[in-house]
């Protein structure tokens, strides 16, 4: 117990230091790229090539192997950003702020990807790309919340202040997300014909679900790798004046 706690505290504190994180994270990044990439390759080949065709939707359903992981991750990244924001506000960890800065563009891209793939899938299936469905609407709101995070950081002149302001905004946003989702859900149940409620479609067959699970896991791992890479770039940018960065740059 004592040893485990000690190990955890040391690791946690080290990861809180940009220098330690930079030194130790290269291996993780490459490992996550490799494993995540392999899982995505397997899941995509399986899902696109070998999973059975849907009786009603034909082959167009296969876009879900991109759409579902992207949509899940887009929301998970926002929650992770809000947690990092709370950590930053309480303990003033520089790494938490850098994680927000690294994660926001990734989350925004995923949200855009989820919306775009949903639109493409909607054209043959629903007959229209955009509907005011509860999920599509709250996904679009999420995209605007990401815009806000990125715009606020650029608008506030000093990096330390921008970091705190963005942390506050991320927490405010995450408190609002359930309220927004609930209100949109309530609104659309009144105004939406039942035929295109995504939530109520029959559950998915295991032969289609397995490749999705593999793909989703691959997406998660790969995206953590991408965030670590972005984090490393932010560290070099923010710590540009530190001696260890100079030594590292000269050593290359």
């Amino acid at each position, binding site marked *: 117990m004592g040893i485990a706690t000690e190990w955890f505290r040391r690791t946690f504190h080290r990861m809180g230091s940009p220098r330690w994180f930079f030194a130790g994270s290269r291996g993780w990044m490459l490992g996550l790229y490799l494993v995540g990439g392999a899982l995505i390759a397997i899941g995509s080949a399986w899902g696109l090539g070998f999973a059975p065709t849907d009786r009603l939707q034909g082959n167009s359903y296969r876009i879900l192997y991109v759409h579902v992981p992207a949509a899940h991750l887009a929301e998970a990244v926002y929650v992770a950003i809000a947690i990092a924001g709370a950590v930053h*506000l309480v303990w003033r960890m520089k790494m938490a702020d850098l994680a927000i800065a690294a994660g926001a563009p990734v989350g925004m891209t995923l949200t855009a990807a989820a919306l775009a793939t949903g639109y493409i899938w909607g054209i043959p299936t629903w007959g229209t790309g955009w509907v005011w469905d509860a999920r599509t609407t709250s996904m679009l*709101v999420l995209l*605007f*919340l990401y*815009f*806000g995070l990125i*715009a*606020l950081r650029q*608008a*506030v*002149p*000093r990096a*330390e*202040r921008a970091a*705190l*302001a963005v942390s*506050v*905004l991320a*927490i*405010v*946003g995450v*408190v*609002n997300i359930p*309220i*927004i989702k*609930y*209100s*949109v859900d*309530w*609104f659309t149940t*009144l105004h939406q014909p039942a035929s295109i409620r995504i939530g109520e479609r029959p559950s998915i067959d295991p032969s289609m679900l397995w490749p999705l699970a593999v793909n989703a896991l691959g997406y998660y791992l790969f995206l953590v790798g991408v965030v670590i890479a972005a984090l490393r770039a932010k560290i070099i940018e923010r710590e540009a004046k530190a001696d260890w960065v100079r030594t590292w740059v000269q050593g290359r």
Partner: protein
Amino acid sequence: MNAFATQFRRDFAISMRHGAEAMNPIAFFALAAFLLGLGLGRSTSRLDEAAGGALWVLALFANVLAVEGLFGRDREDGSLEQLLLHAKPLFAALLGKVTAHWMVSGLPIAVLSPLVALLVDVPPSGMFVLALTLLLGTPTLALVGAIGAALVAGTGRGGLLVALLVMPLYVPTLLFGSGAAMTALGGGDPSAELLWLAALMALSITLAPFGIGAALRVGQEY
């Protein structure tokens, strides 16, 4: 309670002394509704159904534009810093500040909205409900908007950024507000939406001042 009353009296008196400035939100709201009616070709039939939603969106814009400068003057003359140092509790003082702001932005819009509604041909039956939704919804808009204004205070960037930050957070209020107005215009019973608006207002009164306080403290730190 004392902190609330003190701050409220101070801010309300300042707004009253800048009389014309206090008229801006309602003037903007009326002007925008006028342009909307004009832009849609003065044909009454096209506006009937959408009028409730359209007026709500305009009220939302008026609110964003008004709330943006909420902390600017206080920050410049240093009284914002004094407020953050001395107000006990800060929660009550900030609530007083936002209430005073609402008295000159949200309240006039709600009270005068039936007159503006004439411009876009809202039938008399819908006017009362529209005013009621705005009365219940604009406090939420002011409180949530104040968080955005507090985050941006002192950066020298204003309007557009505040709008970008807070408008996504206005979605629930807009949905219930315009939903109630449109239900009433369609002849239905809007009480469910009105209750939801009241619930959102209660929630934002209890939570938003913490967000405003945190955002203002950030602005003082560096």
